[in-house]
């Protein structure tokens, strides 16, 4: 399988704080990679470098083998069309209905005809189980529903990769499963996914590989069974022990 995302020695600092210390990771087409670790580990920063919401200061990022340069806004926009992102806080546009939120990318960015954008958005809303809610504003939807609209919004761009940045962390516990179900279905369709999550069961059951991060470094990369049953790095062992005592 050829890699879709390649991170090669990625460095990122905020002032004097190094949040990514030479991160290396390669995600193959159709692969589902879960990024886990304690808070402040640099998981979100790693994800945000992939679609360049954060610029890296060192190392190399390649999407589909093409090196991403800190260049003009046009090539940046072209990169982001390929990489969908789902945020912890949903970030739906409150002045647009669910349908309009999903249509915005096809209409404004892809410049598809109105009918085609609408058809694509409706199909996606159906797919995330929200066809009946298409005309509601985000404020009229539950957190779980909003997050599913946000997933549909990202999918409407037909991205090569989907990034999930703690997509269920802001949700009421009773609403988490609906969102995880959509993500699991997406994984079953072999969408390439890089998922920052605190849902260990999801990581174990759905991911092909676990990436464990702490202190801005990728400390361990392993298949879920290997990682959770035989973590090697001391910090990984402590992390696995702490999460398994919760469940």
């Amino acid at each position: 399988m050829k890699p879709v995302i390649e991170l090669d020695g990625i460095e990122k600092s905020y002032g004097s704080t190094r949040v990514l210390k030479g991160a290396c990771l390669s995600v193959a087409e159709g692969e589902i990679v879960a990024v886990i670790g304690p808070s402040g580990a640099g998981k979100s920063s790693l994800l945000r470098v992939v679609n360049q919401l954060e610029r890296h200061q060192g190392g190399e990022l390649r999407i589909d083998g093409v090196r991403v340069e800190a260049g003009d806004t046009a090539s940046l926009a072209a990169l982001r069309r390929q990489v969908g992102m789902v945020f912890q806080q949903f970030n739906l546009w409150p002045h647009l209905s669910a349908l309009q939120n999903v249509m915005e990318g096809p209409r404004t960015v892809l410049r598809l005809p109105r009918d085609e954008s609408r058809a694509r958005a409706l199909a996606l809303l159906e797919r995330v189980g929200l066809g009946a809610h298409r005309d509601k504003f985000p404020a009229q939807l539950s957190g779980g529903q909003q997050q599913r609209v946000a997933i549909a919004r990202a999918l409407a761009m037909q991205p090569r990769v989907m990034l999930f940045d703690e997509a269920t962390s802001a949700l009421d516990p009773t609403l988490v499963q609906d969102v995880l179900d959509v993500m699991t279905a997406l994984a079953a369709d072999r969408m390439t996914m890089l998922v920052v999550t605190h849902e260990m069961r999801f990581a174990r059951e759905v991911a092909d590989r676990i990436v464990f991060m702490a202190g801005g470094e990728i400390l361990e990369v392993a298949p879920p069974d290997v990682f959770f049953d035989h973590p090697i790095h001391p910090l990984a062992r402590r992390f696995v022990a702490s999460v398994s005592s919760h469940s």
Partner: protein
Amino acid sequence: MDVSVILTYLPFLLKAAGWTILLSAISLVLGMLIGLGFTFMRLSTNRLLSRTAWTFVWLVRGTPMLMQVFAIYYWLPTVGILMPPLVAAIVSLSINAAAYYVDIFRAAILTVPRGLVEAGEAIGMRPWQIRWRIVLPLAVRPALPPSIGQAINAVKNTSLVSVISVQELTATSQAIYSSTYKIAEILGTASLIYLAITTVLAVLQSWLEERLGNYGAR
């Protein structure tokens, strides 16, 4: 109190009020457009643009509008820019309103959460698309109350262009009381007319606040 003088001159006052409304409306529209332009400059990452806009706001807000009217009508001709009183009035009112709208619009734009901008960036929207399709529509609601407040100021500021003989409400009132000597009656009536105009704006504000930008909340 002499009611008959009010009745006699009311048609003249109302006609002058028409000029006041026209001046207010034109300078508000122009002021908002110019203000929006300077707002974009002010928010630009280009330091020259940002500082130019800051300087414009600093100068216009920091000096009396009366001086600005004089400067535009009496001083600009000395550097070759000559305009009739009505045009000078519109220019000075528009520029003055624009300076206040810059900070009103800027503050409203800054209320739009960063995450909503990032959501646009994440699907590959260009900066100008994010600005027009996400940020500005969401800034309308927070900008509304201070914008109407500034509109009310703009209506009252039209009285200042009376000094360059634009026959709006204040200048007309002065002309009438200087020949009738009924100062209290005429200025009282004029004030009530100003109040009526600004009341319309205040009512408009409540009406818009109920209908605009709630997007299904509550």
